[in-house]
């Protein structure tokens, strides 16, 4: 599996797109999706919620387990992906694309986000 170069990554296995008009997209990595197995339920933060870097903001449930969703950055949620709520398998089939989770207007980001290569090393 390969982690897109243009994204940055958290150690909780979320990815973050570069900001457009201050808004970044957040999802979980393919590595995380594979580790979870078939995702069957996704609970996302709601539009207008404030999320904080490193804190939980939702949950992902698979056949065998439930995992907290952590926000990689601090900011205000401006969109949540209703498609993954309706069809959580998108997280497995397209974690970096159609399986994105939410969009956030970033007010602060931690300094320890990883590059694609750093994350690839971290997750291996």
């Amino acid at each position, binding site marked *: 599996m390969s982690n897109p170069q243009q994204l940055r990554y958290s150690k909780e296995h979320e990815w973050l797109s570069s900001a457009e008009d201050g808004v970044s997209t957040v999802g979980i990595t393919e590595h995380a999706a*594979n580790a979870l*197995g*078939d995702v*069957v*339920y996704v*609970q996302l933060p709601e539009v207008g919620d404030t999320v904080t870097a490193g804190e939980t903001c939702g949950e992902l*449930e698979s*056949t*065998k387990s*439930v995992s907290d969703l952590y926000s990689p950055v601090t900011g205000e949620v401006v969109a949540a992906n209703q498609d993954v709520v309706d069809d959580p*398998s998108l997280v*497995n089939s397209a974690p970096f694309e159609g399986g994105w989770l939410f969009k956030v207007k970033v007010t602060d980001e931690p300094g320890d986000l990883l590059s694609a290569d750093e994350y690839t090393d971290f997750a291996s």
Partner: protein
Amino acid sequence: MSNAPRLTSLDALHRSLGATMTDFAGWDMPLRYGSERDEHNAVRTRAGLFDLSHMGEITVTGPEAMKALNYALVGNIATIGLGRARYTMICQEDGGIVDDLIVYRLGETEAPEYLVVANAGNAQIVLDAITERAAGFDAEVRDDRDAYALIAVQGPESPGILKSVTDADLDGLKYYAGLPGTVAGVPALIARTGYTGEDGFELFVAPEHAERLWRALTEAGQDAGLVPCGLSCRDTLRLEAGMPLYGHELTTALTPFDAGLGRVVKFEKDGDFVGRKALEAAAEKAEANPPRKLVGLIAEGRRVPRAGFSVVAGGEVVGEVTSGAPSPTLGKPIAIAYVDAAHAAPGTEGVGIDIRGTHEAYEVVALPFYKRQK
């Protein structure tokens, strides 16, 4: 003893297939190869191939093998016909369930031989208990865990697949029966048993023959859509089929009567057996004062119940989930739970499960969730 997990004889093959492995009862076992939902659905509609070599085999032979097992276990071993199998249990003196077992009768009356198959996590305890309980009988108890690999082929296409690699009379092999034969050129005990709710077979073979058998079945099943399957889908398959799992629905704190499986206890059999006295009391108590009942619960929402979650009604805890998972067949989360008799009737209103602080509504149903069309 080393803490390193034990490897089955198919370990290298699983890794070459890209399996996600998991530690299960001290064994490194395939959890899934790809999507566990796809594996589950393959077994329901086509066929799946499982490595179950972690299961614990114990052979009991000798003139009094039957008597020894009748004393050690709660079932009536005397009534198992040659080539037949029986689901039974081994209990403590106090009636608590040590394990659930399948006993295969392999030998003629002149040369008695029984194969006892225990859960991996209990294999040593069961072996020790049977050995101790058989001490007063003219019988020999043998640890055969290393003598067998166990491969299961399960699903509606499994008879056709197996037929293409054996001359054994599969049509004559009934559910819960086993016969010795040759499969893909290797000697095997062919049993029509399983833990999926589907028709299927379990093949006990020498470990050195396991890979050859696995490859032959993979090839034979290719056109029928057979896929390798891990323990994750085995769990959702058995859960849908309402089959109990040791450590979840069955524990030493429960008697077979508590688990709604009092029928496996055969008081009418000859002679004493370990737990008889306590189990007679448990049977009476269950009759007079029904304990919590094992029921099925189907979610109205999408959050998944897990073992240990509380079943609630009217703000009170009325039971506990023993197993829960998203059901691929029903498309909804399901659970098996012990629930107070007052809330255990199918259709009881107002029952929910406490999922991390939120009471999610659940429908009470009778088990199983899924029954195959015959």
